[in-house]
């Protein structure tokens, strides 16, 4: 017998209309609900009892949200596309190879067969004190993220602080999507809207997404970069499979301008830009963007690698990404 989940009702709508009705019924009845797409992030949370919805709404039946298509110079990725399909799709491999690579770096083959891109950009922030089994968590008082009153990572944290919880942002696909200027289509109680992916992310490890309760992401849209653009994603882990990024660095070069996106280093992703006109030379520009990225990193000892090591690897990974891009071009 396995870890028990607290009881919940289960629904699997097959159309967005049915989903809307379900969500509004739950709302009216005052019932807490949660969405599950591939479930690879949310099922562990249900098992470890850090999440206890009255109702679980599986998005798996929404077949219309599983597609990848090209419209003009943009690619539209349905939110239920699995990471395996994303990494192996001809359009993505052809136009956005760095995104295919980043998707391929997530978790493991079995997980990528099930996990979705929507779930990946929504994956919950992580911390060694919360992402444990219930039995292990019982060894210490519940922390803020478990509705308790302490933070074990930052002992001085208290309610009312600007940022209550330092759980890390860990999505592997977000950096490349952010560097591509991705936008997301969101369906909510008041219809559908579009927003920049960057606006999805908030600064607290607990309330870390800007969606309203009941909003779902239906698609992700990215522009196909011009020929003067190249991207690369590099991830630091102990093992080649299964590990969340101890740090993940995306680099974009467009006609001499450099952008960098980070995951695993703060409560939200980091995004930095530098263009040649603002600096005396290329090296100065890179030194500047490395310093900005290191400044942004808030590394705590909450990972296999010591915090200073993770921080010091940021410039190494940025330069490695640049080298890779320059090598591929020549």
């Amino acid at each position, binding site marked *: 017998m396995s870890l028990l989940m607290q009881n919940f009702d289960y629904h699997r709508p097959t159309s967005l209309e049915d989903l809307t009705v379900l969500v509004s019924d739950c709302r009216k009845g005052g019932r807490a609900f949660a969405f599950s797409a591939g479930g690879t992030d949310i099922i562990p949370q249900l098992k470890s009892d850090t999440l206890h919805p009255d109702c679980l709404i*599986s998005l798996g039946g929404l077949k219309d949200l599983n597609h990848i298509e090209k419209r003009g110079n943009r690619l539209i990725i349905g939110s239920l596309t699995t990471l395996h399909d994303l990494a192996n799709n001809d359009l993505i491999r052809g136009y956005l190879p760095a995104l295919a690579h980043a998707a391929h770096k997530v978790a493991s083959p*079995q997980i990528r067969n099930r996990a979705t891109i929507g779930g990946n950009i929504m994956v919950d922030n992580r911390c060694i004190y919360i992402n444990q089994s219930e039995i292990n968590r019982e060894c210490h008082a519940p922390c803020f993220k478990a509705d308790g009153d302490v933070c074990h990572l930052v002992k001085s944290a208290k309610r009312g602080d600007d940022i209550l919880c330092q759980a890390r942002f860990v999505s592997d696909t977000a950096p490349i999507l952010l560097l591509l200027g991705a936008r997301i289509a969101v369906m909510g109680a008041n219809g559908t809207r579009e927003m920049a992916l960057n606006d999805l992310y908030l600064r607290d490890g607990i309330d870390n997404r800007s969606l309203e309760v009941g909003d779902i992401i239906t698609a992700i849209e990215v522009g196909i970069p011009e020929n003067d653009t190249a991207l690369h994603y590099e991830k630091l882990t102990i093992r080649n499979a299964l590990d969340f990024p101890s740090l993940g660095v995306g680099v974009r070069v467009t006609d001499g301008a450099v952008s960098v996106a980070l995951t695993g280093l703060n409560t939200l992703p980091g995004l930095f830009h530098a263009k040649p006109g603002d600096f005396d030379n290329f090296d100065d520009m890179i030194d500047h963007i490395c310093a900005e990225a290191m400044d942004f990193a808030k590394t705590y000892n909450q990972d296999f690698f010591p915090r200073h090591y993770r921080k010091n690897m940021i410039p190494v990974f940025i330069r490695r990404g640049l080298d890779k891009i320059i090598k591929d071009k020549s």
Partner: protein
Amino acid sequence: MKILTLTINDVSHSKAVPPTMTLLDFLRDEVGLTGTKNGCDSGECGCCTVMVGGKPMLSCLMLALDAEGHEVTTIEGIAKGNDLHPVQEAMVEKGAIQCGYCTPAMVINGVHLLDNNDSPTDDEVKECISATVCRCTGYNSIERAIHSAAEKMREKQHG
């Protein structure tokens, strides 16, 4: 409780299940197919791998109800009667089984790889078993077994 009808290894099963039941528990406790193992119950060990809709997935990270509409293949569905699948044969021949706890998952992963790629590279074989933990063999014998099974399957196909 909800009624779940699932085709597992070509046999249809209908049972009432609570929404909280994982596919892993459904297979082991409801259907009695105990070949699929529970190692970690949290996505880390790969022991619970089964094929859902023809692709290896972790049955511990999946609700049984979420599998509805997909064919499920477990280790019990890999051999045809007494005829072992080439991957199973090769696992025996290459000494790739010690305690056997990881074996069902290793076989499922290997069968899926070879169904889609009859001449995998070393890296492809390594990646295919990269997320299935074996505490006994040290993996080399499992890699050799998958390569050997690939050879057997190529020979069978091309005579």
